[in-house]
């Protein structure tokens, strides 16, 4: 839960709408919003008003070459096979759809039961030693472990979602392909068709990486990871590389 109180929210909301918070402040603000959805409408309105500034610059005409170059790329991609054209939800459907929930849970249960003691005990101990991660979780808390399903583009990436007591979620990922500079892995909690940002992390070069979720992975949601610009995005801008459904 964010330490940010109502007063701080009031103090920061206009700067947030204008994109004038530092990265740390922005994350803190979004964490507050995650726990106070009743304030979202007010923030959305401020974002709409701030967004009007985008209409104010003197009109400039882009060069015809820009259109030409862009459309060359578009035509090449339009005639190419499908993979890059799918939305996050199409991808989720394809990733999760053909794996029935029952089978998924069976795999989760099997892998969870067999590997948890061997693999995740140590990782949870590591997590417990970190601030903000698995904080205040008793050593004998009984976590749920769900396997993350990789997309085809994710190579050998794998991971597990550990749902600790109190619906605190921790993701442990491995072998995520190297991502470009200026990019991060972003966690999403998707309820219905609304993805909500739920934390950022950098994939490790070797070994597993643990990341705590800023939003509770409640029952029925989908948890997904996408690659986003540094600082994260408000909405996913790329297809998910790892997903699981609770």
């Amino acid at each position, binding site marked *: 839960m964010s330490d940010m109180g109502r007063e701080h929210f009031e103090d920061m909301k206009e700067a947030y709408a204008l994109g004038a918070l530092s990265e740390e402040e922005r994350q803190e603000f979004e964490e507050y919003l995650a726990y106070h959805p009743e304030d979202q409408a007010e923030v959305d309105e401020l974002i709409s008003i701030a967004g009007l500034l985008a209409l104010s610059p003197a009109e*400039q005409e882009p060069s015809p070459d820009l259109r030409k170059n862009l459309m060359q790329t578009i035509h090449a991609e339009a005639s190419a096979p499908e993979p890059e054209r799918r939305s996050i939800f199409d991808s989720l459907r394809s990733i999760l759809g053909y794996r029935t929930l029952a089978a998924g849970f069976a795999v989760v249960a099997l892998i969870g039961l067999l590997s948890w003691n061997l693999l995740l005990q140590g990782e949870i101990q590591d997590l417990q030693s970190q601030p903000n991660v698995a904080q205040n979780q008793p050593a004998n808390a009984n976590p749920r472990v769900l396997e993350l399903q990789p997309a085809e583009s994710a190579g050998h990436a794998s991971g597990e979602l550990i749902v600790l007591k109190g619906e605190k979620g921790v993701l442990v990922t491995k072998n995520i392909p190297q991502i470009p500079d200026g990019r991060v892995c972003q966690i999403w909690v998707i309820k219905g068709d609304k993805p909500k940002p739920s934390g950022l992390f950098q994939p490790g070069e070797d070994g597993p990486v643990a990341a705590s979720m800023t939003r509770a992975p409640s029952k029925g949601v989908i948890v997904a990871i996408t690659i986003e610009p540094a600082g994260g995005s408000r909405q996913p801008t790329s297809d998910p590389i790892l997903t699981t459904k609770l």
Partner: protein
Amino acid sequence: MADRGRQYLLLADEELISLARTGNAEAFAALYDRHSRSAYSLAYRMMGERQSAEDLVQDVFLKVWRNSGSYRAERGSVRTWILSIVHNRGVDHLRSTASRRRTQDKVEAESPKSQPSEAFAETWRNSQRDQVREALNTLPGEQLKILELAYFSGYTHVEIAGLLDLPLGTVKGRMRLGLKKVKDFFDSQDMAVPG
């Protein structure tokens, strides 16, 4: 081909984006023709020079093409969505390269190159643009400056306070008053804030 292109001119943005999602390049081209000028104008205002602005716009429209499925009508118009991507990526660029320049004066000094359009939709968009400019003209200079430094130049409120040698509370207060004044302008005209 020309007839098909003409058909796309009649479609709403939401229909074009749906078609683009299915891989329809012509629908995407119509979308580009409709919004590239706004996107480029914003990009140019932020980047301050032509090449960077074009790179940004190309990057944004490729993103629109590849992620058209992530557009959500309930969160605003297609134009708002595209401009928000331009803005977010522009700010990312300004902050990551630390090559931020105060471009306002330079850009404002250049003459606009508005081109007439026969399309009603374009006229409507221009009308909205005029309303927004009118709203911004009601702001005191010190409020407008702070909104512009934040929105177009990607400065944080703390950085703006440092740049202008103002207390942080003053910067926040001017942001608050500036946005409120814009809202009040639309409320007083019985107009909805363009989405």
